[in-house]
C-alpha cells in the first residue's frame, strides 16, 4: 500500500502550510525520497507545559502492511522525559499506536498530532516512566515539572545541547 504513503507525503506538506492548527508540527516527511518507509517528524512542545519552547524529533517506521497495521513511532532516544515515554528508547505508550486499537482511517499526521496531545495530557495510570507518573499521581506538579525541566536541560549528561 505504498501508494497511500505517497499520497500522504503529497498532502502533508500542503496541510502543514495551509492549516494553522498544525503549526506545532515543524516538519513531517520521509528521511529520503527513495524510501517511504522511514519518516521523521519535528514537533514543538505544547504551550503552557514544561515542554514549551523545546523541539522534539519523532522517528517513524511504516511496515508493508500499513495502513492495516499502525506505524511504529518513537521519540529520538534520550530526548524527552514524560510519564508515557521511555526516556532511554523513546518508546511511546499510546493506545492509538497499538495494533488492537489502530484503525486505517488514521494517518501519519494524525498520529503525530495524537502524540503531541499526549505531551500536554500525560496519562499516569499507564506509565513507562514510573518516577514521573508517581509525582503526577501524588499531584506534586511542581516536582514533576522540575524533574522534566532538569532532563530537558541535559540532566546529569550536561547542559542543553542545542
Amino acid at each position: 500500500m505504498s501508494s497511500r504513503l505517497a499520497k500522504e507525503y503529497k498532502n502533508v506538506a500542503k496541510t502543514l502550510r495551509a492549516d494553522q492548527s498544525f503549526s506545532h508540527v515543524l516538519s513531517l516527511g520521509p528521511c529520503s525520497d527513495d524510501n517511504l518507509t522511514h519518516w521523521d517528524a519535528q514537533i514543538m512542545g505544547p504551550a503552557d507545559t514544561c515542554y514549551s519552547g523545546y523541539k522534539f524529533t519523532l522517528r517513524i517506521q511504516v511496515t508493508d502492511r500499513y495502513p492495516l497495521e499502525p506505524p511504529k513511532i518513537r521519540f529520538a532516544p534520550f530526548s524527552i522525559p514524560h510519564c508515557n515515554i521511555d526516556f532511554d528508547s523513546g518508546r511511546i505508550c499510546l493506545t492509538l499506536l497499538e495494533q488492537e486499537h489502530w484503525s486505517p482511517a488514521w494517518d501519519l499526521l494524525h498520529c503525530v498530532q495524537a502524540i503531541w496531545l499526549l505531551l500536554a495530557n500525560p496519562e499516569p495510570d499507564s506509565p513507562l516512566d514510573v518516577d514521573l507518573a508517581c509525582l503526577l499521581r501524588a499531584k506534586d506538579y511542581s516536582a514533576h515539572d522540575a524533574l522534566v525541566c532538569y532532563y530537558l536541560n541535559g540532566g546529569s549528561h550536561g547542559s542543553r545541547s542545542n
Partner: protein
Amino acid sequence: MLLEFEKVYPVFSWSWDIPGDENAVKENGDEDLCGICRVSYNGTCPSCKYPGDDCPLVIGECNHNFHVHCIQQWLDTPTAKGLCPMCRQPFSLKRNVAINEFQMGRLAKVLINSQPATLNDDQDMMMEPEFVVR
C-alpha cells in the same frame, strides 16, 4: 450544406452510483476518497489496475464507503473485529443498494469469521443461506 464526418472519438465518463451522494458538497473539486487507501472511489485500490467492475465499491450500513478489496483486507485482520475503520460500528453492507449486491457473499464470510459472538440482526440476515458460500 453537406457535412461529412471523417472520424468520431467517443468519450465516456462513469462514476459509481452512490445513493444519497448527490447532496454531498464537493469542495475544490475534491473527490471522495476510500478511507483505507485514500484513493478516489472511482479509482482502484492499490492492488488493482482497472477501476470499475474489477475493483468495486461497497456501501456500509453506516454510510461509510470503501473499495471492497480494502475493506475486505481490513476485516481479515484479527484486530478489525468486524468494525468499520471510520466509525467503529459493526460493518455490514447497506441493503437494497445495487452495487452492494454482488459483494454480499464475499463480505458475509469475512464478517462471520470476525465477529461470531456479536451478531446483530444485520449479520443474522447475512448468515442466511443465500448470502453464505461455504
